[in-house]
């Protein structure tokens, strides 16, 4: 079976700046991959490339069977990108925001109500997004993403703004998503929090994965070692 995400020598320019300058990455179904690297390394851009929100200027990119160099929209309804903002409307309540996200992907209001319950948002169902705390907004962002029942979940700094119970809850959500076969790609600086739930880590440096980095190969010849993979 082909990987959910398959990138080869991907280059992405933001203006003239090469935000990604050669990225190789595979993510399999059910796998949780941590994407680490310093500020400006290209983690968020990589998530947006995979989501099809920004174009691939060079290289090969296939996500959920869609060739992103030809079509950046075909796979979108099958993935969810949970960014540092909730992709929600300030004047809609928690339930209305999740229901809107559900309806746009052909899910029912009952699906939305279920996800709101699963994420512990029922007590906040009638509260407008604009009145939520940072941590509550992060939880709503996750609900907006999960209601789509994505095959690929892209998370950008998911632990930011969450308290200790919220982080534990997120870990449970990630484990559950992974168990159900959802591929998860997490960009984060909070390595100590994500490493325990990640299957492996890929390091981005200046928009590149490490040299000689064909994820299908094994340049070191050591069992279990993958290029660009720390653990």
């Amino acid at each position, binding site marked *: 079976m082909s990987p959910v995400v398959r990138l080869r020598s991907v280059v992405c320019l933001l203006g003239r700046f090469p935000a990604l300058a050669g990225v190789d990455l595979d993510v399999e179904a059910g796998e949780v991959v941590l994407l680490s690297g310093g500020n400006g390394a290209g983690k968020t851009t990589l998530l947006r490339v995979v989501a099809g929100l920004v174009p691939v200027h060079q290289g090969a990119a296939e996500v959920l069977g869609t060739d992103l160099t030809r079509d950046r929209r075909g796979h*979108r*309804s099958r993935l969810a990108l949970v960014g540092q903002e909730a992709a*929600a409307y300030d004047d809609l309540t928690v339930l209305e925001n999740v229901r809107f996200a559900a309806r746009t992907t052909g899910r029912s209001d009952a699906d939305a109500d279920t996800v709101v319950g699963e994420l512990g948002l029922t007590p906040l169902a009638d509260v407008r997004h604009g009145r939520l705390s940072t941590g509550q907004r992060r939880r709503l962002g996750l609900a907006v993403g999960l209601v789509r029942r994505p095959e690929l979940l892209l998370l950008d700094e998911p632990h930011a703004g969450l308290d200790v119970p919220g982080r534990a809850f997120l870990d449970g959500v990630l484990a559950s998503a992974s168990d159900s076969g959802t591929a998860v790609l997490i960009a984060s600086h909070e390595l100590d929090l994500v490493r325990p739930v990640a299957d492996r880590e890929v390091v981005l440096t200046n928009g590149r994965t490490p040299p000689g980095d064909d994820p299908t190969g094994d340049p070191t010849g050591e069992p279990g070692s993958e290029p660009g993979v720390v653990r």
Partner: protein
Amino acid sequence: MSIWREAGIVAGKDLRIERRARVVSQQILPFGVIVLLLFAFALDPDRGVLRRVAPGLFWVTVLLSALLAISRSFGIESENAARDGLRLSGLDPSSVFLGKALALAVELAVFEVLLTAGIVVLFDVHLGAVVPLALAAVAATVGLAAAGTLYGVLAAGIRARETLVPVLMLPVVAPVLLGATRAWEASIDGATSDAWPWVGLLGVFAVLFVGIGMLAFGPLLEES
């Protein structure tokens, strides 16, 4: 999902947000009334003059107020990365265009009804032939909403969108201002036969911009 069902989802969301935020009722409508009053002060207290120029004043006021509503319509998509959510939703971009244009048209229609009451009371205008007057208003509203949605998304990703939208849009919608004003003048005077050609022009403009919008909105949303 059908294109109309998807458009309904987007329009329902925009109208619900508007009903909550009350920007049209608490900001755009008072703005329109103030503009009408300023025109009345600036021109002449003689109601004969105001009656004659009322159609032009009405549609200039609608146009200026529409710019605020357009800016608001895309402002809500700029908050909290909501536009990314819309792009990732899987909705057909044509549906998103129709939904946002429909919501904008409903808001403008409500505004126009209230403003019509304003010119009847303030300027002592008698509406005359109501059918061509109403059809002209419907066609002009659809045209403004479609053109506004198109230019709104064009400027959506630009920081200076509040100033860019009027510069881009006002020259393009000049035929709406002209056609609607002439149609209303003829209708108010009871000269129905003079009104219909202008109603036709407004209809052509509306159809043209709905068509262009459905084709162009997707690529523009991607670039915004």
